[in-house]
């Protein structure tokens, strides 16, 4: 169901620039490989053929932060790894979003102790939290679709940063 069916034979489309830009951003958002622990395996399962994430635009996972838009923090973040996460987040170019996948990334889950950062939002600002230990691949896809809806509602004036 593409744009042609809505427009007929006109050859001209009129829409706001924001809609066009947001449509382009959501239809080809490439995540960065940041699988830390058990949630990474469910992320790999979501990328594999049974629950395919490429249907939603995430065709491949980029290892380099300079070439990705989305960081899915999948797994528990220890205090030794926290500065590395911050540096990788800073290296990603704008626009960028963060999904915190799993209980350990959202609130440190089962582990309430000295070694883990109690929730990734102490280090990077998070857009969508996906709950579960580990979340089913369908839950992760629901989280991704929620992020798309958030991105579709973004306005240019909110993105203006000093």
């Amino acid at each position, binding site marked *: 169901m593409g744009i042609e069916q809505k427009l007929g034979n006109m050859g001209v489309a009129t829409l706001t620039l924001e809609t066009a830009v947001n449509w382009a951003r959501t239809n080809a958002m490439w995540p960065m490989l940041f699988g830390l622990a058990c949630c990474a395996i469910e992320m790999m399962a979501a990328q594999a053929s049974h629950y395919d994430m490429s249907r939603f635009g995430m065709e491949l996972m980029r290892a380099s932060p300079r070439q990705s838009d989305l960081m899915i923090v999948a797994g528990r973040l220890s*205090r*030794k790894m926290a500065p590395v996460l911050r540096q990788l987040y800073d290296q990603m170019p704008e626009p960028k979003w963060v999904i915190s996948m799993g209980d350990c990334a959202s609130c*440190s889950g089962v582990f*309430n*102790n*000295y*070694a883990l950062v*109690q*929730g990734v*939002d*102490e*280090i*990077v*600002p998070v857009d969508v939290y996906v709950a579960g230990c580990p979340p089913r691949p369908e839950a992760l896809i629901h989280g991704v679709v929620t992020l798309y809806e958030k991105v579709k509602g973004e306005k240019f004036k909110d993105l203006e*940063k000093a």
Partner: protein
Amino acid sequence: MDKKLELIVQALQEKYATSIEEFREEVHVFVKAEQIVDALTLLRDKYDFELLSALTATDYWPQQSPRFHVIYQLSSIARNITLQLRVPVNGDQPKIPTATRVYDVANWRERELLDMFGIEIEGHPDPRRILMPEGTEGHPLRKDFPLGYEEPQFTFNIDEIDLRKPYAKE
């Protein structure tokens, strides 16, 4: 205990005047810290204990002497038996000699002891922290190190905890 183990334990007792403990068909032999490298060499060369399965420690705080028990779990593949050696170590200035000359795996395992319990290893080729980041103060698996527990947020205290939590803004 297993017949094959009896001879070995007797030999150890004669040589090092050790005491033993048995529980659920396992044998724990208590050895002093100075004798442990000799005992390990003897067990590896004469009695075919080729595999050092585990090297760990237990903390018995607030009891200070001994405060730690260092545990060596040995396994023999040729004879299919296991044996456990325990070394009691005191609380102030705990130290044991290194076993890296006997088993190569002790290199990393002793670094973990140094990191987690603060037990000094004499003669270790690479005494750095292994699991905790550099510059950590304290040794986590000791009993007087706190768990680092964060207070769970319920509806009655969520606002105050939210104010104190360091959220990242951008």
